[in-house]
């Protein structure tokens, strides 16, 4: 009844190829964006529950947005191009540390002459941080031309452990900080000093909106179709004239770029000061979970998966306290593990294609509702 495209005629090709060809979808998106851009900050500004506390913005919405962004990057590689990666955490770290170095000034002594770059503006350093991550991504993507699947996963695992070690042991990256932890530079975006939770939230939201739109358009276009052809059967794709070298390496580059930018945001805006542990193997696994639970090969799925993975532990933490069960903290941690693991298994069994598939099923149902003919 509500969700039906009857009567929405398309008179040209462009309208048919629009991102959201159905009017209701467009409306929903505009509404969502309006709520996200205007509603949440307003509610938060006037301290209306539950948006009044910083907790919601700082501890839930901010990581949700950044993880969604990182998940979009991972999804491009794993979901669209079919190259399994366990090294996303490392690429986040590369983005974060490169942005940090660029934001505080780079100085490379080379004996005879030195390379010095003055401290760049924050926005530029975040974007260039993603760029560094893309370069490393291409380097670690080269083995993907020979190997695939789980073998590739181990190759990316090499990136993960290697960069963990590099950022821990090479003091140059941390500007010789004695504790090994570094602080983000001043978040000055052309005069807009990002300090309050609302500012941070809005900034991340802008990044996420731009990159989500970009990613959505990329995967709909020529290059995205090449990725999907490679994913579905690489030999057949090659025979059809798709260059695997180009397709795979662009997937690695775009994916690591987005993941790198997400890493820089995670470090600068969410954490503020961080250590290499923020980007360890668990982060990579978490991103992979988000992508798989949300739905491989779906941008929408990244948001759903990130929301789920983020909310579940918080929920599990709150429930025993809420119903008054006096549990030991150790027990709660272990129970969290157990419930989290079983839920993952359950979801995989019930819906191996993730939440995004559930949404599209619901849409199909809605189209026929309430008269199923």
């Amino acid at each position: 009844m509500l969700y039906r495209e009857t009567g929405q005629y398309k008179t040209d090709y462009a309208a048919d190829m629009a991102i959201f060809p159905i009017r209701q979808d467009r409306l929903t998106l505009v509404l969502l964006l309006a709520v996200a851009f205007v509603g949440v900050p307003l509610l938060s500004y006037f301290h209306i529950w539950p948006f009044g506390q910083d907790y919601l913005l700082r501890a839930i919405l901010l990581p949700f947005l950044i993880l969604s962004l990182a998940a979009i990057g991972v999804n491009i590689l794993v979901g669209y191009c079919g190259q399994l990666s366990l090294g996303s955490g490392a690429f986040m770290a590369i983005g974060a540390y490169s942005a940090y170095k660029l934001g505080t000034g780079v100085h490379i002594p080379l004996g005879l002459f030195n390379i010095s770059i003055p401290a760049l503006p924050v926005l530029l350093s975040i974007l260039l941080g993603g760029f560094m991550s893309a370069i490393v991504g291409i380097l670690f993507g080269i083995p993907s031309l020979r190997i695939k699947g789980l073998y590739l996963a181990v190759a990316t695992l090499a990136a993960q452990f290697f960069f963990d070690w590099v950022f821990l042991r090479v003091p140059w990256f941390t500007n010789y900080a004695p504790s090994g932890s570094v602080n983000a530079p001043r978040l000055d975006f052309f005069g807009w000093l990002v300090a309050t939770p609302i500012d941070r939230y809005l900034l991340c939201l802008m990044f996420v909106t731009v990159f989500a739109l970009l990613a959505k358009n990329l995967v709909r276009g020529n290059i995205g179709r090449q990725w999907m052809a490679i994913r579905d059967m690489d030999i057949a794709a090659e025979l059809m004239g798709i260059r695997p070298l180009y397709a795979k390496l662009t997937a690695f580059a775009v994916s690591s770029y987005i993941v790198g930018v997400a890493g820089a945001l995670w470090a600068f805006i969410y954490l503020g000061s961080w250590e290499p542990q923020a980007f360890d193997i668990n982060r990579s696994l978490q991103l992979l979970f988000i992508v798989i639970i949300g739905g491989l090969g779906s941008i929408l799925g990244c948001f759903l998966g990130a929301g789920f993975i983020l909310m579940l532990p918080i929920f599990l933490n709150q429930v025993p306290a809420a119903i008054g069960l006096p549990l030991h903290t150790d027990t709660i941690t272990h129970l969290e593990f157990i419930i989290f693991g079983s839920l993952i298994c359950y979801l995989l069994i019930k819906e191996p294609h993730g939440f995004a598939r559930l949404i599209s099923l619901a849409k199909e149902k809605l189209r026929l509702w309430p008269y199923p003919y």
Partner: protein
Amino acid sequence: MSGVLYSLVALGFVLIFKASGVFNFAQGAMVLLAGLALVRSLDLLVSKGFPFWAAVILGLVFAALIMALTAWLVERFVLGPLVNQDGLTLFMATIGATFVMEGVSQWVFGSDVYPLRLFPTDAWFLFEGSFPGGILVNKLDVWGGLIAGILVAGLAVFFQRTKTGRALRAVADDHAAAQSVGIPISWIWFVVWLVAGLVALVAATVWGTKLGVQFSITFLALKALPVLIIGGFTSIPGAIVGGLIVGAGEKIAEGFLGPHIGGGIEYWFAYVLALAVLLVRPQGLFGERIIERI
């Protein structure tokens, strides 16, 4: 030498991969579970006044039963419903199973470090007459090598000579085809996970004696992945040789390269070595050649 230990964990991976095409992330958690079950029951029995040898036997039986139960549960509730899904989904499912196993084993058996004393840990000095000081050989390493050798021989016989072993190889080739010629796939998977669980138990006895049974075992088990790559995913001898190469290689690299570039390279050396092997020989040293068809 930690190489033998890596080999033992890698063996479990290879078994499950060979027989079900599942890349079993949970092997590390299974080692932890087996180790905890063994060491806790052992402590309990000894404190109840059982003689040590009886406690060891009962503890081993108890841990083996736990592993059988785990195998049954995994087959019944995780992998059974996921027959014919692609490898990535199964891989993620085993990660889910890993979380559950880690949670349950620590919840039930406790999360401290428990020392295990099954094998002697002192050392022999060989060839003391030939040159001063001689060669220091840890008895535990000898035991570990012996056990690994026996395991490999036993598994080889099991895979090549028994009916179940042949069925296992058929299932590894093609689930659907194996099912259609009447091989009960759920039973086969149970057997595989059981065998992998028992290998995990053996690994846990050696690891536990060396390091104590503790949570970090699961992280060290991640090192088994490069071992597999180097040895080849489908080869049992490959797992052993790969483990030895990684174990020796990272110690040598740490000794010779470590001081020059900051130390701690044990942390990633195995992975980068695996990456190099992948570039030259994607199927590993002993793996079957990967043939691609459309």
